[in-house]
């Protein structure tokens, strides 16, 4: 099937670059870019085919069989997949192009291209998976690419530890994912979507006793358990609270990566997974509620932290966390289509924002602290304007893509019940903060007096065209995607969910107005604070010092983890090693050896060299033997 090429073209690019990268070097983009563009074209073709109503399924090969564990690798394209395909290939193509300019002259140029090609392949395979294990395999594979790309500048210690952290935190999530996956297999005897989904309804009432090892009795619904376990994976991958800590650190990677992986595609895999498994989640209200609450919490936490960050990419990163919270919350409330919709628009405008950041950073010679920027709007006009469009979309400014999708999420939340209404209110609040921090970024970076390092201040200019063109395209997309009618396109996939995107009614209108107002208020607030009264932030910070510091230090989550998990683990490891392994086990082993040797030394003394002692021993032997025989 031709569509097989969609993922395998990037793979081919990766192999060529990976094996011959040292020779190709500066020409690496000549391999990678055409491959991704081609697969982008094929994706569009696939999209149109799927849009006409068909579902494409391409079996590839049998991965492993063992008893009833029977896993095949295959491609499966329905509407959900098709949308994701478009997102991935388009953003990826643009990032590829952007990279040509951004990474120009870097020693790891070819390596970088090979990694993103590999990432594109993995991400495509992830969304194309027709079974859970394939999903998991590429779920981890994208994690690997993320790891490699975060650590792209391997000389930097901070990049390396960020990479490690990202991988580890994801592993924690994947731990749950794996167990959930096994539970699915155990319960259904299969991992294929088309086996599981039909069977799911029949098993709806099954429960599992979680306390059976202890002899207790705590029955939990099978699907709740499956849902929660799988969602653990999503928490990790989509940077939800409490595993969100890796994502901001991941900004140590080159900016194109932040755009592609840590904003548009990989981090949304969790949302995609929940949406993909909607038939299972729908069977467990508890799991759904947990998903929604986690999403909401993430949304709020991310936004509050983003308010005070000073690193340009970290602000955007926390906004990503926050936006991912929106999507997850939407899924948790059953509004899968809205969630996916937001995913898509977010993919466009967040990629735009990140690439814009990248443009700024390149222009400022890798300066990322917004306190040392300012007044750039004249020097970097393309960047500035596209950045503003992205920020407007993020802030939910009317008629941008972000406006529509955020509105869809909030409306769906409101309509989904009491919990949803509470969360919708939170969502509105977050929207306010979102608008505030995104325009804080705009104003501080581009407006006002220049605080740029005087060394660089003179030669700030717009980067090359390979950078600006993707920005422009993404800016267009940031507006355009709002008008494509994605929710209704996706509706058939989630037909079992109770969402009716068509009937917003009065509530819908109210939410829309509220959200708009919130967005405008946020922008106005930012303008007031950062343009009109630049000394205000400092005063705020002094006035609410603990709040400010909490936000600035990301609510001390990293520190808490360090104290609660990392340090104790390392302590336990070295203590266990010294106490148990070295002292107890080896001590026992060496002790036995020493004991034997010691008794040897002792017994050796019997051999005194005195002949008559020897004779005495013989006589003693006679006594013992005679006694023994007499007595027994």
């Amino acid at each position, binding site marked *: 099937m031709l569509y097989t090429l969609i993922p395998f073209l990037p793979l081919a690019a990766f192999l060529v670059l990976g094996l011959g990268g040292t020779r190709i070097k500066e020409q690496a983009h000549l391999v990678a870019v055409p491959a991704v563009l081609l697969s982008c074209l094929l994706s569009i073709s696939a999209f149109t085919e799927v849009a006409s109503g068909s579902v494409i399924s391409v079996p590839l090969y049998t991965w492993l069989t063992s008893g009833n564990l029977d896993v095949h690798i295959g491609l499966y394209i329905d509407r959900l997949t098709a949308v994701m395909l478009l997102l991935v290939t388009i953003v990826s193509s643009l990032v590829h192009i952007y990279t040509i300019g951004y990474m120009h002259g870097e020693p790891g140029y070819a390596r970088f291209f090979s990694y993103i090609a590999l990432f594109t392949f993995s991400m495509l395979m992830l969304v194309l998976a027709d079974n859970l294990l394939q999903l998991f395999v590429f779920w981890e594979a994208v994690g690997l690419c993320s790891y490699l790309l975060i650590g792209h500048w391997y000389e930097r210690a901070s990049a390396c530890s960020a990479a490690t952290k990202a991988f580890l935190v994801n592993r924690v999530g994947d731990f749950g994912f794996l167990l959930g996956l096994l539970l699915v297999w155990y319960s259904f005897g299969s991992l294929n979507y088309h086996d599981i989904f039909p069977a799911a309804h029949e098993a709806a009432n099954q429960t599992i006793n979680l306390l059976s090892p202890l002899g207790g009795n705590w029955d939990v619904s099978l699907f709740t358990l499956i849902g929660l376990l799988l969602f653990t994976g999503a928490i990790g991958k989509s940077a939800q609270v409490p595993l969100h800590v890796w994502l901001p650190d991941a900004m140590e990677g080159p900016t194109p990566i932040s755009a592609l992986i840590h904003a548009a595609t990989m981090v949304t895999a969790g949302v995609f997974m929940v949406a993909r498994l909607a038939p299972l989640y729908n069977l467990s209200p508890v799991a759904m509620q947990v998903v929604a609450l986690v999403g909401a919490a993430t949304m709020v936490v991310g936004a509050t932290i983003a308010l005070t960050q000073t690193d340009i990419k970290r602000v955007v990163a926390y906004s990503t966390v926050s936006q991912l919270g929106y999507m997850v919350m939407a899924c948790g409330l059953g509004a899968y289509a809205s969630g996916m919709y937001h995913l898509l628009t977010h993919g466009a405008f967040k990629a735009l924002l990140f690439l814009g950041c990248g443009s700024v950073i390149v222009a400022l010679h890798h300066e990322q602290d917004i306190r040392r920027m300012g007044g750039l709007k004249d020097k970097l006009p393309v960047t500035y304007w596209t950045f503003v469009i992205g920020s407007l979309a993020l802030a939910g400014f009317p008629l941008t893509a972000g406006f529509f999708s955020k509105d869809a999420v909030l409306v769906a939340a409101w309509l989904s019940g009491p919990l949803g209404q509470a969360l919708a209110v939170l969502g509105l609040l977050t929207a306010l903060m979102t608008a505030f921090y995104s325009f804080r970024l705009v104003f501080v970076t581009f407006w006002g007096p220049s605080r740029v390092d005087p060394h660089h201040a003179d030669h700030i200019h717009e980067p090359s065209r390979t950078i600006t063109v993707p920005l422009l395209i993404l800016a267009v997309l940031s507006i355009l995607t709002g008008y494509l009618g994605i929710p209704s396109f996706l509706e058939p996939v989630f037909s079992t969910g109770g969402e009716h995107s068509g009937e917003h009614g009065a509530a819908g209108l109210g939410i829309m107005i509220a959200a708009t107002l919130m967005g405008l208020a946020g922008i106005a607030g930012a303008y007031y604070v950062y343009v009109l009264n630049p000394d205000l932030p400092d005063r705020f910070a002094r006035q609410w010092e603990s709040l400010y510091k909490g936000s600035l230090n990301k609510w001390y989550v990293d520190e808490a983890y360090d104290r609660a998990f990392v340090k104790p683990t390392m302590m336990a490891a070295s203590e266990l090693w010294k106490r148990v392994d070295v002292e107890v086990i080896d001590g026992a082993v060496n002790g036995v050896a020493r004991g034997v040797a010691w008794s040897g030394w002792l017994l050796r003394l019997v051999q005194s060299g*005195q002949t*008559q002692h020897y004779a*005495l021993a013989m*006589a*003693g032997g*006679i*006594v013992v033997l*005679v*006694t023994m025989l007499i007595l027994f």
Partner: protein
Amino acid sequence: MAELFFGYFAGVIALTAVLVVALRNPVYSALALLVLFFHVAGLYVTLHAEFLAAVQLIVYAGAILVLYLFVVMLLNLKQDDRYHHQWRIAAFVCVPLLLEFLVLLAGNGVAPQSSPLTAEQTAAASDNTMAIGTTLFTTYLFPFEVASLILLVAMIGAIILAKRDIGEGGQT
């Protein structure tokens, strides 16, 4: 009567045996042993082993013991003034051993497999020497030959060991 003889011989044998061990001067020990040999020979006679009694006197008393005395004199040994320091432990071991032996050999009413000799049998067995001779050269011919080898070994071995001249590379 027999008991009387036995009592005498046994008494002297036991006494001299103890003396052999107890006397510190090896010459005295050897002399005590000599007395013991004579009495053992006497005991043999009461047991109708006249040939052995004679051999006992000739070989043991006449040859072996003389050899001992000869060596003792040759080496001009001083009196052995102490027993080995382990004698207490030795006593600790040997006393139970003695008790066990006594229990085994006497206490449990030893019953020899064949009955004691009758008078007729005693008479028949009078030609002890001839009987031994016949047996030696018929039934025990092979051991006899082996014994001769033992003597050969002893002879040559003694020469080799006691020979004085041991130059480096000296010829034998």
